């Protein structure tokens, strides 16, 4: 497999890998490093890739595992994640919508969710994956995915309402 061919395979989903990594690792730099790592791993396994019919699912799985490992070793090393980049992305769109505060709130609310719910919400509401795909990716049953998703959505709704009320008072 040549470099251009590889890029054509990887290009459609590399942003998804990055967004999942960023959701889990929070920091932009960490997510970039993780994505780069995953793409390089894929490149080194490019002979195997041709055998997979769903490279995207495989890559997403790799990203998930990689990020969870990262987080685990971080906790063990007692290091805190640095995240100071909430508002730098998509400034124009946020201004256009005039709800920039609410949007960064949601990002923070999602950060506070349990890891599993975080991933389910990311995969479903941002990436629009089907329940079966999410179930396979996360090693859960489709019903469990549904329950986790419902909980995550409700938590976001409640916290958002809370924050709105505080804002008013």
């Amino acid at each position, binding site marked *: 497999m040549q470099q251009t061919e590889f890029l054509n395979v990887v290009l459609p989903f*590399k942003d998804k890998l990055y967004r999942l990594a960023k959701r889990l690792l929070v920091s932009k730099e960490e997510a970039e490093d993780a994505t780069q790592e995953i793409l390089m791993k894929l490149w080194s396994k490019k002979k195997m890739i041709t055998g997979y019919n769903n490279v995207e699912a495989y890559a997403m799985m790799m990203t998930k595992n990689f990020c969870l490992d990262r987080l685990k070793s971080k906790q063990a090393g007692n290091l805190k994640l640095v995240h100071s980049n909430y508002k730098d992305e998509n400034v124009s769109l946020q201004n256009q919508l005039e709800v920039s505060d609410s949007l960064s709130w949601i990002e923070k609310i999602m950060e506070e969710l349990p890891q599993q719910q975080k991933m389910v919400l990311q995969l479903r509401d941002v990436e629009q994956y089907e329940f079966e795909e999410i179930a396979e990716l996360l090693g859960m049953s489709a019903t469990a995915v549904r329950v986790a998703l419902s909980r995550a959505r409700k938590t976001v709704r409640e916290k958002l309402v809370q924050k709105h009320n505080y804002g008013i008072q």
Partner: protein
Amino acid sequence: MEFNNIEKLLERYFEATTTVAEEEMLREYFLREDIPLHLKRHAPMFQYFSVAKEERFTKQVPLKPRKKSYIKWISIAAVSVLVFGIYFGRNYQEQREAEYAYQETRKALSLLATNLGRGTEKVAYLREFEETKQKIYNRN
């Protein structure tokens, strides 16, 4: 239009029983400007998802075309050549040392032999002398 419809969809959305297509409808609906007040509090959530999906991975990934494996094989070859070289080199060295020792021993032995030969010559003279002496004694 579809307040009721949207409300129903929202309800099912929070129970996670909507399909991807229905969620797409919700997302599109909440991107609009004219959302009724009682639904407005849900808007940021859906807007956030749309915004979050726009995020891109822009870093360049350095992909090295195969060089790595070449280097690996070359290093393996080099190491094996080195190991064989040392092994056979040592063998050769040992052989040469043994030959040298053999030559030296031979030299030493031949030296001994010549000296011994000279010694026996002298003894031959001595015997001659002895015989002559005996002859003289016998005559007397």
